């Protein structure tokens, strides 16, 4: 499918109207003009909102998952909007509302840029296109991979190839940026819980119907404490041994097996406790210095992650984990198996994947990023022996509150090898 668009001399993009009976503005029917272009004295006021390239981004065409691949794979795109005509090829942007026509490249593309090939450095391993793709509406869930696989397969041909399995990209950074490290973009998250696409693995953004976002930190790297194996032909192989994309020679059996990643990582059961809005109202703010107040993040109602510091005082990270699926509300306190993935930047922070046990394998249910050295940047919720709640900013790192428990639970839990489906 993608080949048809990448081989076309020009792709006409119908970026106006909600359906195919709308037509291409300016071909048979007149286009609209901006609502205002008024001169007052020496000043000329021109309405530009909605008339710039965002008009393409806000179109029905740009809201659909399938059209992502069609636009991305095309070489020369001619966008018909209600007011303008844009021409975007791999190297130039033109618009018929600009004298001289030529407009700057990256400045101009704005929201549209993740929907177009980008020849810049890819420190995020193309994960931004997954964010854009999962933002778009898909009519049939079963199309989730087909709608983007053509685009993903193009990255495996690059000088520094980026492979993917079920839409999760992995590969190294181009030589010269850093020593070679193999990175995998498993650390995406959902802002709000969403529905599961059962036919797809839970560790892939395509396994869910929500927008997959990626944090600012680089994707986690494969190391001794975090190893990933993928199914290849007849057995699991290390990521570093992958030489071509699985989905280029797709078959039902391969697909079924490849739904699982074999992960070797630290696995720890973390406790999550539910704090209601009412309970959080009782937080004693009197101990907080006045100049600190604006910086304190007000803890929100929900499940807070208990930091394993020992038993004399309960410490909770005041930032809520990002759930993929709606957490169970019937319980005050739950214990969740969590895969602890060291950050790609070598810092003490950790990506924590919350899992659910399915006997033969685990599935992902949520994600959060945990920093052991908060260094005054985030605050924590404390519950003392009497049950009183306080919120504090940590000045050192968590170890100063800890007996051996933190070290044991966070740093040296047993490495385990398990299937993630």
């Amino acid at each position, binding site marked *: 499918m993608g080949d048809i668009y990448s081989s076309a001399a020009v792709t006409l993009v119908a970026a106006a109207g909600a359906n195919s009976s709308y*037509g291409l503005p300016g071909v048979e029917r007149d286009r609209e003009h901006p609502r205002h272009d008024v001169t007052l004295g020496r000043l000329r006021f021109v309405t530009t909102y909605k008339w710039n390239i965002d008009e393409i981004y806000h179109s029905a065409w740009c809201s659909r998952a399938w059209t992502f691949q069609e636009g991305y794979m*095309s070489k*020369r795109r001619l966008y018909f909007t209600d007011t303008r005509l844009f021409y975007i090829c791999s190297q130039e942007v033109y618009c018929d509302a600009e004298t001289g*026509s030529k407009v700057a490249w990256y400045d101009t593309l704005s929201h549209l840029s993740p929907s177009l090939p980008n020849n810049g450095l890819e420190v995020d391993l193309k994960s931004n296109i997954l964010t854009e793709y999962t933002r778009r509406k898909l009519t049939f869930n079963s199309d989730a991979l087909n709608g983007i696989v053509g685009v993903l397969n193009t990255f495996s041909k690059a000088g520094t190839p980026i492979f993917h399995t079920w839409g999760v990209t992995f590969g190294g950074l181009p030589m010269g940026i850093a020593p070679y490290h193999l990175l995998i973009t498993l650390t995406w998250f959902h802002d709000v819980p969403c529905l599961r696409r059962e036919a797809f693995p839970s560790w892939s953004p395509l396994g869910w119907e929500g927008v997959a976002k990626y944090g600012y930190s680089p994707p986690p790297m494969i190391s001794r404490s975090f190893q990933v194996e993928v199914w290849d032909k007849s057995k699991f192989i290390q990521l570093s041994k992958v030489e071509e994309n699985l989905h280029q020679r797709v078959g039902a059996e391969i697909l079924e097996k490849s739904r699982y990643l074999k992960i070797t990582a630290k696995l720890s059961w973390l406790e999550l406790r539910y704090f209601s809005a009412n309970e959080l109202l009782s937080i004693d703010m009197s101990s907080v210095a006045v100049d600190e107040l604006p910086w304190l993040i007000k803890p929100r109602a929900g499940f807070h992650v208990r930091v394993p510091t020992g038993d004399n005082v309960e410490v909770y990270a005041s930032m809520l984990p990002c759930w993929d699926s709606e957490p169970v509300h019937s319980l005050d306190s739950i214990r969740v198996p969590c895969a602890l993935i060291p950050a790609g930047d070598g810092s003490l922070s950790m990506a924590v994947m919350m899992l659910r046990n399915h006997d033969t394998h685990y599935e992902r249910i949520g994600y959060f990023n945990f920093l052991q050295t908060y260094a005054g940047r985030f605050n924590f919720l404390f519950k003392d022996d009497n049950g009183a709640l306080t919120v504090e900013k940590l000045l050192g790192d968590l170890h100063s509150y800890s007996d051996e428990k933190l070290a044991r639970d966070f740093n040296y839990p047993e490495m385990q090898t398990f299937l993630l489906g």
Partner: protein
Amino acid sequence: MASEKRHPSIDNGTHTCERCAPINFTNLDKTAFERLETLIYIDDLSQPLTDRHCHICQILQDTIDVHRLQYTSVRVSWRRRRDDGDPMGTLEFQYSKGDTRKTLKPDLTVYDDMARPGRAKTQNSPRRVDFEQVKTWVHACKLSHSLCTTNFSEGLESLRVIDCVTMNVIPAPKDCVYVALSYVWGDSATCNISRSSALLEQMPLTVKNSLDATLMLGYRYLWVDKYVCWKTAVLGRSRLM
């Protein structure tokens, strides 16, 4: 268009209403670069804010209209761009309701026509697409862009295309140079594509216009899914909502 009908009184006179008159537009070019200067604060968006003869009001009304339902107040600020600015600057709108704030920019771009007469870059697109201009873009691209080269892919032997001259669906000729259409089908009625004789009547307007656009761009063949049954099983998709 609806928006023009709503404001029949716009002319290039200089009438401004009581609220807008004090705004010192003549000093807009003297503000510091990139600093936001509040021009107007409207605290009750539920009231009509328009004096229908006032130019400023007219512009604000139209720009604000879209958002007024969600917010209660709006602050209109001016941000000056570079000195040789083209445009000179933009008006930004910060909407708020309680603690919720949203800034939209640039809704309005301001050009200094006196300093650079006729230099304002933005102009209206022609009412009809100027395909001759588009052809010059495509031509320039073909001549100089190594990244934009397209080749007829080997995997496409069984490609079928619409011949826009004869209006038949045909197997793509060898090394076919064709135009592709990317569109959303939307919720229009289900279509049953049958024989080419009936092709035109069944076509939605977007596809019809694409046939014309293809010819006007100097091409003969158009690929549109649904119309050129190409290995339907492989396509495995439907645009029907």
